[in-house]
């Protein structure tokens, strides 16, 4: 009884700030406003979202998010391994150094990249110092990818690091003892056991990467580059909340499906030992 009572505020919170807004967006996405102010039910918003222009934007978002996630994984896994193997005396400091940039405002960090990559930025400054021609770094897909990797890399490193730290060292010794060289030990034991961390990291990078609009706004410019920008523009510039809501719902569904696929992948035998941050 007391338990039920204590959970009241949380249930209220969830209802008010999570369920109601989602239902509102769902509602907006399925109606249009008539000239007399009344709502009519329609699927036209969804149909419009499958216009080739918008499908291209969606696919581009997915492509860049997948690329960013893969780059984060390739960079992040060895980093997590190095951190986990570090002398405990220095490890805390090293992990701190990793986390400290995250304390700074996300916008500021991305602005910093603008001044590095910009036309008169640091990189071009270095190039011209050596007498090389100026190059355009900013306002390209590469700049957006860089911004994503830079901002989201800690979200890949930390869950993998946590799993590696928690891994029973005697399992690695057992694998060595049974004749496994370094490569075998990694592929047969360390990698499969760190799968829950990889999956957490992949979700934590992929989700913000596929829905971001700040990074692409700053590093690519104000066009319909990613699906996040598209939604933002519909709400803030074009003022078409209905179409914006429909695109938001599609994106949500997409993330939901990819999460389900991930869970399925991770669900094979490791769930009991799994460290899932989600």
């Amino acid at each position, binding site marked *: 009884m007391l338990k039920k009572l204590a959970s009241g505020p949380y249930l209220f919170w969830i209802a008010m700030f999570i369920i109601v807004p989602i239902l509102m967006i769902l509602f907006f996405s399925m109606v249009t406003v008539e000239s007399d102010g009344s709502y009519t039910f329609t699927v036209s918003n969804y149909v419009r979202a499958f216009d080739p222009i918008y499908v291209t934007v969606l696919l581009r978002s997915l492509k860049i998010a997948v690329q960013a996630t893969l780059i984060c994984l390739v960079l992040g896994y060895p980093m997590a391994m190095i951190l986990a193997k570090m002398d405990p005396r220095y490890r805390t400091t090293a992990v701190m150094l990793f986390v400290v940039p995250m304390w700074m405002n996300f916008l500021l960090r991305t602005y910093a990249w603008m001044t590095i990559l910009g036309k008169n930025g640091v990189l071009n400054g270095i190039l011209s110092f050596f007498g090389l021609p100026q190059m355009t770094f900013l306002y390209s897909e590469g700049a957006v990818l860089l911004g994503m990797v830079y901002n989201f890399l800690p979200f890949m490193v930390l869950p993998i690091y946590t799993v590696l730290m928690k891994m029973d060292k*005697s399992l690695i010794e057992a*694998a*060595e*003892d*049974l*004749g*496994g060289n370094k490569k*075998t030990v990694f592929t047969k034991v360390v990698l499969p056991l760190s799968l829950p961390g990889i999956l957490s990291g992949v979700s934590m990078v992929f989700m913000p990467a596929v829905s971001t609009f700040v990074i692409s706004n700053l590093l690519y410019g104000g066009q319909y580059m990613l699906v996040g920008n598209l939604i933002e523009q519909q709400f803030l510039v074009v003022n078409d909340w209905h179409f914006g809501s429909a695109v938001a719902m599609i994106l949500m569904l997409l993330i939901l499906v990819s999460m389900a696929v991930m869970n399925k992948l991770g669900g094979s*035998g*490791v769930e009991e030992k799994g460290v899932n941050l989600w």
Partner: protein
Amino acid sequence: MSDKIVKGLNITKEYNGVPVVKNIDFWVKKNQFLTILGPSGCGKTTTLRMIAGFETPTTGQLFFEGKDITNTPPYMRQINTVFQKYALFPHMNIYENIAFGLRINKLNEKEIASKVSKMLELVNLSGFEKRSIHSLSGGQQQRIAIARALVNEPKVLLLDEPLGALDLKLRKEMQIELKNMQRELGITFVYVTHDQEEALTMSDKIIIMNHGEIQQIGSPTDIYNEPENAFVADFIGESNILEGIMIRDYLVQFAERDFTCVDKGFGDNTPIEVVIRPEDIKLVAPEEGLLKGIVKSVVFKGVHYEMLVKEADRTWMIHSTTMEQEGTHVGLMLTPDDIHIMSKEG
């Protein structure tokens, strides 16, 4: 070639300058059941880990069948280990766990299947192939860990307190099973434990360690009956340890009395220590005893009573199946066989 399959020479292991194992020499004979026994922190597990290859000695050399393996990585040693907490792979079923080493050695699937099922039969877990390791009890996991190590037909099997987590009854059963396995398979076992009873039950030879040093090496009977110093006497079973003087061969003085004994070779008038096992002292009527005392306390221990007897300024521990009431005047009877002489430490 000698029959010493593993040999350690002047082995020292330090961690950050702190020695954990101090200049020890030891060897293990083929088909022997050797136990390294000692309290926690005595360096026994470190010694085992050096044999396995997980640790490299700071100084000294380690030989396997006459070849120097001091710097050989674990995966190149024909030695397998049973870990204290089993260390079974949680992402594999039982079949895959046992097959791990065989797959690395690239055996074909048919051979693997037959070897795995033979091993499961040996550890009495036939039919468990497809089970997950999470569905097993501690005792069953331990058997799988043993099977996983033995299936590779190692020349030496290392066991690091493998029965530590099991309850008493299961532990006793496993002790007998392990001993039988070792005899049947003819594999050398090196077993680490802090349980002196376990060591006495299973071993052909025992190495007793304390503070990183070997205290005594010998057969269980030798170690029990002729402990070389007070630490060994105290660690192996309970005992009464007294200061004494060896008057001459076969004559020792302690508790203000001379006793005939069976030891010799300590030199005349040499200070020594005397060990007398609590079960060797017989309680008799006061006038028949060599020493007289009063029973101070009686505790029932299951098979025997443990009595503390106050004699002069000393307290004797006595084990007997018959009980004397507290406050009773008793006599203590000793025969020469019961008196064990040790040279003084230091």
